């Protein structure tokens, strides 16, 4: 097809973002469950709420950030727009608008996946079941990714889907790092202790980066090298730098598309990200990792806005399809 309706570009962009968020959330919950088991009685669930800036919303529904409450809030609570059920719903609503453009397999899997997620009850979320459940959720997302990869026509719609996916993935990676880095660092006494190492370990595992990390650094594990790996390793597919490279690739694709002659989004935001990602990690941690991650998130956000202005005919606001589900995550 020669031209793509602006609305469909937006739908594809958001469908990808929602599914990427679901996968990341499943990873976070999974690894957090391991944390909670390891760290003797430490209330490990509050950081997730802080990660998504959901404090206010959460505490209007629940009194305490217990494992049970947090997991319910993020998996099956429909009033939480960041919950897995809300995100899968929103992804599916975007897919509904795109149905004539996506493959039947993509729609069908999303449909079955939503049916599974919306059928989850509190008893399915018991701590003993959680790891298994997260595995299933992750696999649902990976199945989606695989079907999209294997069946999607490589037109503009594909490009916008990939842009949404990579922006969301980079954003999620920075948030995960931010949460863990701050939770893990302050306890100076623990640095190098078995608990400390196991937690960094778990962080790497949550982003499927442990083995990759080991190939780069066969021995030792410090907070800095882990942060560097997660942010800046170009071979690691969930690193921020990998995502930004993908974003540039798809950006170039749009700029070279003859059907889009005269439309472009400025690459200055991408240049800024590249510059930030080439700063040595020692300098980053010295100047403050949290602020650094914040700046990356803001940059990603303005990239999304630039895409929306250039191609969707307005601000990206997640209202594409999915009604009131707003993108509180990416506005955080």
């Amino acid at each position, binding site marked *: 097809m020669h*031209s793509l309706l602006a609305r469909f570009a937006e739908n594809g962009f958001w469908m990808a973002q929602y599914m990427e968020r679901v996968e990341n959330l499943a990873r976070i919950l999974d690894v957090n469950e391991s944390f909670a088991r390891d760290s003797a009685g430490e209330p490990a669930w509050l950081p997730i709420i802080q990660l998504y800036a959901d404090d206010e919303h959460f505490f209007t529904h629940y009194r305490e950030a217990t494992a049970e409450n947090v997991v319910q809030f993020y998996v099956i609570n429909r009033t939480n727009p960041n919950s897995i059920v809300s995100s899968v719903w929103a992804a599916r609503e975007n897919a509904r608008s795109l*149905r*004539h453009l996506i493959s039947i397999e993509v729609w069908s899997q999303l449909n079955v996946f939503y049916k599974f997620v919306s059928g989850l009850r509190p008893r399915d979320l018991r701590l003993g079941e959680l790891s298994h459940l997260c595995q299933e959720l992750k696999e649902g997302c990976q199945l989606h990714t695989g079907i999209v990869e294997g069946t999607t026509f490589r037109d503009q719609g594909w490009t916008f889907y990939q842009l949404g996916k990579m922006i969301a993935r980079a954003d999620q990676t920075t948030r995960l790092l931010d949460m863990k880095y701050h939770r893990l660092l302050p306890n100076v006494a623990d640095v190098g202790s078995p608990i400390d190492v196991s937690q960094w370990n778990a962080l790497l595992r949550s982003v499927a980066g442990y083995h990759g990390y080991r190939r780069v650094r066969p021995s030792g594990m410090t907070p800095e090298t882990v942060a560097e790996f997660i942010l800046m390793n170009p071979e690691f597919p969930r690193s921020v730098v990998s995502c930004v490279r993908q974003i540039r690739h798809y950006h170039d694709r749009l700029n070279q598309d003859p059907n889009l*002659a005269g439309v472009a989004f400025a690459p200055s935001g991408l240049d800024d990200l590249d510059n930030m990602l080439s700063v040595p990690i020692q300098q980053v941690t010295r100047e403050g990792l949290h602020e650094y991650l914040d700046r990356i998130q803001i940059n990603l956000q303005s990239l999304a806005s630039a895409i929306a202005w250039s191609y969707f005919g307005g601000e990206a606001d997640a209202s594409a399809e999915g009604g009131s589900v707003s993108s509180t995550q990416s506005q955080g």
Partner: protein
Amino acid sequence: MNGLFDDYNPGAYYCELTGKSGSPLDHTRTIQDWLNKIRPMTLRRRARDCERELYNLGITFTVYSEANAIDRVLPFDVIPRPIAAEEWKRLERGLVQRVTAINHFLHDIYGAGKILADGVVPEDLVKGNSNFRAEMIGVDIPHNTYVNICGVDLVRDKDGQFCVLEDNARTPSGVSYVIENRHLMQRAFPDLIAGIGIRPVSDYGIRLRDALADMAPAQVLDPQIVLMSPGAYNSAYFEHVFLAREMGVPLVEGRDMVIDNGLVYMKTTAGPRRVDVIYRRIDDDFIDPLAFNSNSMLGVPGIMDVYRRGRVTLVNAVGTGVADDKAVYAYMPRIIKYYLDEDAIIPNVETHICREKDALQFTLDHMADLVVKPVGESGGYGVVVGPRSSAAELENCRNLLLARPENFISQPMIDLSVCPTLVDAGIEPRHVDLRPFLVTGKNTWVMPGGLTRVALKKDSLIVNSSQGGGTKDTWVLA
């Protein structure tokens, strides 16, 4: 082993598989033999698989409530409804005849008005009809084809005779189920289908696209065709998706289009792009808030003006609703005769036009046996079914008839044919109808098949999906 059909008894009704005699018709023998051999458990398992597959593939209609969207599957019955090759040939001729006459009629009433001047159809019936659009008078339509997509509801009576119950000349739906039902049967019953020559239905999308291209405004060689939907919240949304996909055209909504400088554009990632042909699945009333319903959020303000100038084509044309009105339906045999000088190949259901004196008298005399229908309505509202009405209801109907006879027609009760259908107890007869689809651009093509709707409730004659109806695959035999 007991066969599925051992206890099957269609009674006095005509059965699509066993005819009137109770033993299989020549053309259905293979199907019935096969069904008689299959174990009921196997049949049930395959039926369940079909139902699950329909849901998973999203072949659903969506019911929206405040907080949720529930996707429902239109019930599907796995026992097919066959139609003999010879019989279909006759139906095909009759259907083409009918849609040809309808297009002549629309061209005439929005043009010279000869049929009205000649007194064949009363002028006030047409021009006073709520579906008559004065905006269409004198507008040129490519190939004079007003009704490009037509669905004709056929029923078979006790004697096995097909007749037309209703024409659907606005935005008939259901064709996607015809095609999806076939795909489903091909997957679930490859062993049954393999032995039988069935005419394919899957090229509907290509035929439709060709017809839409035929309808492009003058001088447009490579038209941009779009399908216009009221949106994902419409109950027929699946069909809109299906057709857009089959034709490879964008599925747009009113909000995606703008009028600029006398042309229609859609908003793309590359800016505005001209649109030439719009297959709109939205009623006349909602197409343009400037011309019709000013509250419509679904339409495109100003599109009627562009359309009237011939710079975009709307499909079906605006104003076709007058042709499928119940009052005009009654005149259809005369309309066919008037334009084509032929008798109707497929008869109407016997219809009494109450504005005519003898017909009114007949209706009043036999009201308890007749179905009285108000004209200018659709969806079965205000219909009085004589045999199922109380004395008071009949009296009320009599008064309405006497006050405004021109508002009514009456028809006898029709004993719809039945088809064996899988129910809890095994196989039982259930009433069916048939909606074939015709696509017309320069020429008319009849899809070999159609939507067979089945009333799943015992003894029910109501096949509508909103009232417990399901569908079957329709097999036009080669």
